[in-house]
């Protein structure tokens, strides 16, 4: 352990060489909201939920007023921790930013929590509740997305995809199978399967693969398993997502 440290919301956080801000914060038990970050994978930096401000300054103007000059904004999952830096995370501005980002994800996909198997253990839903997102605010896309039930054990419901690429990374880095990838760009970006037909059933994904068990929302679901733990007794029903600094997704519920 290194003896270097930085400050997160004025609290001193030690860090080891090479750790990013979020890695050091989570190790120290301090929660920073995140979706695409996962401790077992290289930081990705796409969801931007973990955005923090670094080294804001307060100056006194000639007429004696104090003015805060905001520091640079950065994704804390990909920004290396540096000794002595002052990082802000729990500010009104950043909470509002995160709420907006969650609302953006909520309108981009089709998220119908009341009928979703992942309700109560979904990270997007968990974050929305924890951040106090009361509604999606923006007009829904109502984008038309398909369901792929071609695989014997796994169902894909693309309606809920937040494009965090955890399954892409898991399949490439851990399973060494490259079952998932992304195609399209901008608002047509979407998850694809590694087969000429485009169907999951024509890939070599196994239900035990990391990629089949890493989805933080309700896209990659195991067939013949559903609602084994009833609503109301699930992980984020018991404690808010911010209670545990490190969020592994998804959580294996004890039956």
């Amino acid at each position, binding site marked *: 352990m290194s003896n270097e440290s930085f400050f997160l919301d004025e609290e001193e956080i030690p860090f080891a060489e090479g750790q990013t801000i979020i890695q050091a914060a989570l190790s120290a038990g301090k929660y920073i909201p995140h979706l695409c970050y996962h401790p077992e994978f290289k930081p990705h930096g796409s969801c931007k939920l973990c955005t923090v401000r670094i080294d804001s300054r307060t100056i006194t103007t000639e007429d004696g007023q104090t003015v805060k000059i905001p520091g640079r904004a950065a994704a804390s999952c*990909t920004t290396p921790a540096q000794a002595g830096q002052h990082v802000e995370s729990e500010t009104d501005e950043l909470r509002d*930013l995160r709420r907006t980002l969650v609302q953006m994800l909520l309108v981009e996909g089709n998220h119908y929590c009341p009928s979703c198997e992942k309700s109560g253990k979904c990270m997007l839903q968990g974050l929305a509740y924890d951040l106090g997102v009361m509604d999606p605010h923006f007009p829904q896309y109502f984008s038309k997305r398909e369901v792929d039930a071609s695989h014997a054990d796994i169902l894909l419901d693309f309606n809920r995809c937040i494009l965090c690429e955890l399954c892409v990374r898991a399949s490439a880095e851990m399973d060494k199978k490259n079952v998932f*990838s992304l195609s399209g760009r*901008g608002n047509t970006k979407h998850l694809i399967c590694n087969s*000429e037909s485009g169907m999951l059933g024509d890939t070599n994904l196994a239900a035990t693969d990391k990629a089949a068990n890493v989805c933080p929302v309700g896209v990659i679901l195991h067939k013949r398993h559903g609602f084994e733990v009833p609503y109301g007794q699930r992980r984020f029903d018991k404690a808010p997502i911010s209670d545990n600094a490190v969020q592994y997704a998804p959580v294996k519920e004890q039956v």
Partner: protein
Amino acid sequence: MGNVTSNGIGPDDSGAVQAVLSRHKHDASRLMQILREVQEGLTWLSPAVLTAIANGLKLPRARVEGVAGFYHFFHTESLGRYRVLWSDNITDRMAGNADLMARMCKKLWLKPGDVSEDGLVSVGTTSCTGMCDQGPALLVNYRPITRMTADRVDKIVDLIRKKVPLEEWPSEYFLVEDNIRRKDALLDNGLAPGDALRALKSPQEMVDTIKASGLRGRGGAGFSTGQKWEFCRAAVGTGANAAHYVVCNADEGEPGTFKDRVLLNSYADLVFEGMTVAGYVIGAKKGLVYLRGEYRFLLDKLNAVLEARRAAKLLGQSILGQTGFDFDIEIHLGAGAYVCGEETALLESLEGKRGVPRKRPPFPVSSGYLGQPTAVNNVETLASAALIAAKGAAWYKAIGTAKSSGTKILSISGDCQRPGIYEYPYGVTVAQVLADCGARDTQACQIAGASGLCVAPGEFGRKIAFEDIPTGGSFMVFDNSRDMFQVARNFVHFFVDESCGFCTPCRVGTTLLKNVMDKISDGHGGEYDINDAWRIIRTLKTASHCGLGQTAGNCVADTLQKFRPSYELRLNVRDFEPAFDLDSALSKMREVTGRDDPGAHFHIAHRKSKSGVGAKGGDAS
């Protein structure tokens, strides 16, 4: 959509794919070039062709499909024997491209974006093709046609119907003019090929020279070129293939910019010489030009210049007979992605991947192309570096202002009598530029492109310089007849088309901002929507992964502040009106029944709002 060919792969296709793969030695990093060449032969990339390419390169198939799906100029569905793409920059709109495209579609019995029933042709739009000084412009099978008129539309429709091969179309259609209106130190350089190379001193002395000249990046960011080269020179390559690389960023995609097109067309020697100087300084043996797909028409000419330079010992082994001075240049083509102008996205694309900007650090100077130290410079920067190498730092430093030495090439388009290329010493005022290009009754200038700054008349005394208005060179002029709201709306649509989709704020935020602008344009917007726009702009600026998203809201922010009335006259008196529009929900029914009478509308008020406001801004959608 087009079922011209089945998804199967015929023996001819297979042979064509294999030939391209062999030519590129089955090198996966050349995927972009392979996809383009295969598509040029087969007209589209069928599922079976993608599988064959993936197998040939030992890549996961989904990776190949993901790359093909990223770029606008690759298509995984047949889009017809003729693919027509109208450039849809605001300057094309102002020149009337919407009416011309509608005329073309009507004559071809087509809807924009659809392929004709016989699989012959499709007509659509694309982002600015860099022909703003001679628009309206379009691409037919990725070859540019400029100065479109109604008459030219009719003739082209005829050529397409008669299935005349592109090679037999009248050559004047494909004429692209330089339109150089003002030359200064760079465009009037008086140098012969090799002059800069013959003036080379030791690499360290050259770093010092470039630093002393004060040269800064001409793409817009303005980083010190000498410093960049020094960092890159000091960085150490890694692994078995350790090397340094020079990359010329010729992905000139900023709407309204076309100066690199002219530099490459008429000053290619100087650009290549600048790359060679850079190679000499940083210790690179290889240089790559990333040429935007829209400039495919320059490829053969540029390759001929490279060949001539090799023959003259200005490129290749032992340049100018100097042992150990080896440097060669290869040209890679992009395929329609503005984001690849961002240097790390460009590097990804050069490596045959989706053009998604990388995380920084590390920076390209230490870990760039293939993870090796790489100097990525703009076309104009490299040409300027060659000029400095030949003529010296002191001479160059004397041009321009104290903080911005040298000259800047502006691409001027829009409402002026003489659109084209203007080179000025830094420090020239906006007013001077406007006077020189013959602009009258100017309401605003958009400087530095869609992501840049909208300048109102009160600011025309400001200077083009890093310390005042920095720019990559785009300079679009709008006179009093234009509608600045529609200008901003055009730019917002551009960012929706060009966002790479990597990060949430840009992927979703650009679309939400477009929705707000469209809602206001349709007459349903209120104060509530303006507040929403600000909230989205803040989110884009704070949280986006790269410059594209961070600046995507600038055009709305600027016009909201400086041209508020163009928004006001569209705003509803009510604070809020839902985005869901009952009348437009009936449009499908009207289309099917062919009715447009009052009974086919929800409410009389909605019919009025359809007439639109301030028509001259132009609107195709």
